[in-house]
């Protein structure tokens, strides 16, 4: 399954990056030190933190995508940094919980 498959169920808007990437596993959280040690490569990281430090953590942990919950937008300078580092950023109107439920239902292996 790729990020493309999630876009419609999440009513998602792609803010930057490639959505042809496949993913595996989800981490939900906003505290950067927690995310730093728990986000694995190819995970989806669901958060409402959308600053340049979020992008720095993603650059180091290499999730398949950052999904911003609750329609959170990302400032342009952070999006520029994400683009430069090949990080996909997606925004969804759903809550972090709702996003997790949608992904879990679509990927039984992640339940």
């Amino acid at each position: 399954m790729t990020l493309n498959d999630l876009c419609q169920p999440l009513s998602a808007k792609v803010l930057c990056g490639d959505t042809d990437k496949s993913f595996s596993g989800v981490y939900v959280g906003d505290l950067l030190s927690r995310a730093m040690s728990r986000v694995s490569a190819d995970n989806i990281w669901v958060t409402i933190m959308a600053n340049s430090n979020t992008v720095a953590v993603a650059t180091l942990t290499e999730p398949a995508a950052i999904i911003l919950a609750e329609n959170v937008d990302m400032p342009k300078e952070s999006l520029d940094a994400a683009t430069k580092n090949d990080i996909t950023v997606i925004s969804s109107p759903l809550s972090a919980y709702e996003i997790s439920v949608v992904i879990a239902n679509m990927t039984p292996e992640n339940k």
Partner: protein
Amino acid sequence: MPDKVRFHFDVDGSDFSSAGAASVQVKKKLRQLAYPPEIIRKVSIAMYEGEINMVIHANGGVVDVEASDEEIVIVLSDRGPGIPDVDLAMQAGYSTAKDNIRNLGFGAGMGFPNMKKYTDYMRIDTEVGKGTTVTMKVKL
């Protein structure tokens, strides 16, 4: 992998938006040098936490990294306020970060615990009013 490679970075303490830049550069260089992904991950986490600490608490500092085929040594030095109680600072969840810092997603109190967890050696030399030097090693 080379015999020994050294990197030096000045960390700007006034710019939160660029915090982590040195860690990202080290990660890219280690990847170019073909270090194993798990080693790069450990170094990235430990160095990022140290770099962020220097920006949050010490108005920046310097980082020196030495990579060999045996280990990667990271030394972070600052002239910040020093740490009055290192044992307390090492406790998971303990943080002195201000609210404006917490609003950026920092202040989880996991900086030092992550640095210890992801390295094979960690030493903190600190003096109140003088500064702090943290030395970490990740063995291959």
